[in-house]
Structure formats: C-alpha cells, structure tokens
C-alpha cells in the first residue's frame, strides 16, 4: 500500500510539470551563484581550511543536488491539512498518518532524484569543474547517507508540521525551520568553515546530518572510519528524532480540533 502512495505522488508530480521546470532553473542559478561566490573568495588561494576550490565547487553542487532529493513540503502539507480540517479524512483510514506523509514525501523525493538530480548533476558536471569520486564504495555509501538525509529532514518536517495542532498559524515556524536547516545543515557554507563555537554547536544539532555529512563523504573530505562515523551519526539522529515525534503525535491526537464543524 505504501508503495502505491509513492507511485501516486510520483504521478501527481508528473502532472504538475511547470513547478518542476521552474525548480531546475532555481537550483541552477543557486549553484552558479555559489560557484562564482567561492571563486571570488578563493582568489589565488589554493585551499581554505583544507578545502580546495575544486572540492568546494563539488561540495556546493552536490549539496544542492542532494537538497533536491531530501527537500519536501511535508511540514506545510500537514499544517494545511490540520488548518482546513481535511486531516479528518486521514483519520478514518486504516493507516498511520505520519507514515503516509513520509512515503508521500519519498515519492516526491524519488521523482526529483530521477528526473531532476541525476540530469542536473550531469549538466553541472559539464559546466563546472567538479571532481566525482572514483571509488564505487563511496557512491554506495553516499546513496545510503542520502536516504538518511531524507529521513532526518522529513522527521524534522513532521515535527514542524505537527506544530499546527498546537498553534493556529505555523507559517512563521515553518519558515524559520527552513532557514535554520539550510544554514546549520551546511548547505551554504560547509560546517568545517564555521567559526569554532558555531561549528561545535552545529555538531551537536541534527541538521548537519542532512547535508554536511553526506557531502563531506562525497567530496572525499571524510573517508574511511570518519565516513562510517558520519553515517552512524545519521542513523543515531534518525532514531532519536522518532521519540519527540511519537510524544508530540500522541498529545496532538487529543488536541485535534477539526475546523469547520
């Protein structure tokens, strides 16, 4: 059944192709902008804190491409369903609402992985000087880490979305979460370049597990044992986050108040 939810979401995404095309443009512009930005910063320098320009370019491109996969709007979807009351329909079905949302997000992610990220990466490789790892083991490890990225990001989205059970308008919360995730996940700037205290803080937050850790492995910054520690850390966060989700869900069930009679 859950597989069918993925399929249906996939079909729906296909039905709304315009969103998809505009998404490609946005991502291309972002990658281009960051490329020139870093190019200017590096100037004549070979490396900044162990990051070569080529590594940095790869990091930026790969992080954005990964974002295409793990990013989803589950928080907004949940908030909307709670607000307009259609969440009631979800509760008369014999399935777990959150799990359904997760799989819908996965359908969306898969769509973007296949029709967006893969062709996007090819195009980006042609335009910018990007170093891809040659070791197939790194590729495999990266794919596994990408799955965790999706899981952790979606878990955070579920938590944010469930905020709608508690406060009337969660738009602000959702926007804030998005900025925090983009910054602390190391999407804009690798966490290794953060000033000391901020880097320490980031290492204790779940966000770095979304983008920084997999991208660091992919660009070859973390390898060997370090890479295994990274994926282990992801796994820990993915499991840990289940706890607040369960607690919040249980409380939310009792608070649910269906709008519109």
């Amino acid at each position, binding site marked *: 059944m859950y597989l069918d*939810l993925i399929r249906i979401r996939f079909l729906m995404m296909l039905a709304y192709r315009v969103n998809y095309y505009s998404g490609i443009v946005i991502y291309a512009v972002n990658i281009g902008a960051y490329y020139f930005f870093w190019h200017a910063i590096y100037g004549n320098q070979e490396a900044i804190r162990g990051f070569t320009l080529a590594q940095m370019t790869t990091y930026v491109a790969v992080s954005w491409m990964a974002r295409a996969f793990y990013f989803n709007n589950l928080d907004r979807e949940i908030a909307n369903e709670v607000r307009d009351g259609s969440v009631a329909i979800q509760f008369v079905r014999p399935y777990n609402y959150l799990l359904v949302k997760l799989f819908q997000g996965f359908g969306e992610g898969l769509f973007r992985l296949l029709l967006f990220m893969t062709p996007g990466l090819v195009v980006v490789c042609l335009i910018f000087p990007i170093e891809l790892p040659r070791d197939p083991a790194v590729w495999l490890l990266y794919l596994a880490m990408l799955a965790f990225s999706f899981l952790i990001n979606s878990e955070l989205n579920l938590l944010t979305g469930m905020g709608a059970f508690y406060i009337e308008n969660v738009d602000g919360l959702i926007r804030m979460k998005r900025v925090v995730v983009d910054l602390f996940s190391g999407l804009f700037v690798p966490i290794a370049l953060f000033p000391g205290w901020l880097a320490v803080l980031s290492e204790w937050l779940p966000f770095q597990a979304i983008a920084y850790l997999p991208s660091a492995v992919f660009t070859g910054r973390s390898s060997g044992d370090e890479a295994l520690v990274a994926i282990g850390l992801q796994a820990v966060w993915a499991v840990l986050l289940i706890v607040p989700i369960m607690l919040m869900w249980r409380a939310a069930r009792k608070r649910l108040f269906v709008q*519109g009679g």
Partner: protein
Amino acid sequence: MQPAIEVHELRKTFKVQRNREGLAGALRDLFRREYVEVAAVKDISFTIPQGEICGYIGENGAGKSTTIKMLAGILVPTSGTVRVAGYVPWRERERFVRHIGVVFGQRSQLWWDIGVIESFQLLRKVYRVPMADYKRRLDELVERLQLGDLLNRPVRKLSLGQRMRCELVASLLHNPSILFLDEPTIGLDIVVKTEIREFLIQLNREHGTTILLTTHDLQDIEALCSRVIMLDDGRIIYDGGLDELKARWSRGREIRLQFGEQVSLERLEQLTADLPGARWQAGEDMTAVLKVPSAVSLSDALARVVGSGVDIRDIKFMETSTDEIVREIYKSGSASGAERLVGTT
C-alpha cells in the same frame, strides 16, 4: 447481538482561544493567552442497534459533527465511553476504521488530481480488499449509482452530484457494517438527493448496514430514518421515532377555506363550537383557517362547515410539516422542551 453503536455519557470540550480587544489586548495576548473551555457535546448517551438508520439532527453548532467525529475515531472524547462495532474507536483506530465507512458532505475523501478509478484502486489497497471482492463490489456500486462513464475522470472535473455518488462508493468499497454520513445531501439537487436516498435504503435492506446520518434536510430523515436523535447545544433533546415526534409536537391539521362571500369569524366559531380545541383564524380576502387538533376527526370538522350552507370556493388541507415541527422545537429552547420530550419517551 451487540448494538452497532453504544454511547455513554459522552463529552467533548474544546479549548478556545479568547482574543482580547484592541491593540493593548492583542499585545497582552502575545504573552499570555486566555482560553475558554467550550463543551460541544455534553454527556450524551444513546444506543443504536445493528441495521438501523438513525437521523441525527440539530442546529448548526449543536454538536452533531463533533459526535460523529468521535464515533468515527477522529476525535478523542474528553470523557464518557464509546463503543462502535465492538471497538473503542480512538484507541484501536487503525483496526476499527476497517469496519466503518464515512462520508463528509463538505469534504472529499478522493484524491483531487487523479482519476476516480485510481482513487478507488488506492483505497482498495489501503483497506487491503481482495481483488475479487473489490471487483464484485465496485461493479455493483457502479451499476447502482450509474457511475460507468465517470470513472476515468479526475475528481476535480466532477459535478457535486457526481462527486457525492463517487464518495459513497469510496466509503463502501471495504464493505463496512456501519456507515456515517455527515450531511450527505448538502447542496445537491432533488434528483440526486432522491437517488442517494433510494440507494441508502437499498443498502440498508440488502446488506443490513447500520447508518447514522446528520442532515439539515428533514426530507432525508422522512425518507430514510425510523429513528431520530435531536441535539441542541450539546444535549439530546429528543430520541425516538419520527412518527412519535410528529404526533407529539404536531399542532394538528389545518383546513384552509376560501369563501365566496364575507363570513364573520363569530359565525364560523359557532359552527364548530361543539368540537373541542378547534380554532378559527381569519385570513385576508375572505379566507379563514380552521385548526383541528389530532383528536378531532377531519370529516367531523368539515361536515360542520360544509353543511352550514356557507359559500365555499376552495378547500385546502395542511399538515404540520416536519420542518415546522423541528423549527418549533428549536425555537422553544432546549430546556423546557427537552424535559418534556425526554420525560415522555
């Protein structure tokens, strides 16, 4: 045989935010919110046996939808007990909902962007209905509700009537023993309404499906329900047969007469002086209305008037409609009316 629905002392309260007035109030709200507890359903109890069609009526905000949502496992009750099809709905929700079907007139349970048949197939998987059962059931429902040519259209391109018929199919694919309908005929034209009513009666007769429906359209009740539960301000003010409700609350019948000449009210009153409870009311343009209590036979009343030699041009008989009765009950306020009604049933 256990009853389909058992409700005991069921209560649901909501915390509603109170917004203070003015800018100062809004600023204070930022820091400390005030909440007011509002009880939507106040300790109601009722039992519905299997195979019954029960109408659940009341004004807007009386607590109908809240009750239905608790019975369907969507809302968690504040206190009291609910047992539907042998389950405690909110506690065993995922297993429980396989036994019920729900249609919300104001909300779609179909997927908006995909074809109707795709929605049905997805629901088949959601409810894990075996393919053979699904086929048989779908064929039957499609034929009954004449959906043949709609199945491949996306839901957003259906008319309300078409959509509602599809919603019914969607709620019945897994063959539930209990069906909850929350305003199923809202906004539909009379033809579709009639179709849906006939369909529900047939469903109830052939499959023994228990049906609980809320509605504002009392014709739904008259066509479908043997029993009515009336709610006002979260409390049950009537629970019993429709005929009983009518008999108890009906102010009798009316005979509307059009005369060919001016007839004085005194003269008319003399004619029916020996009939207890008969009252006259003069209308405009040489008309008058004779109110006849249920205890007096209509022919007696009519004989008095017709036999008197008054020039009568037209006679109309009116019965108090359920609409009027219900309006009367709502208007009379819950408290006094409620005691009277509950006390006598």
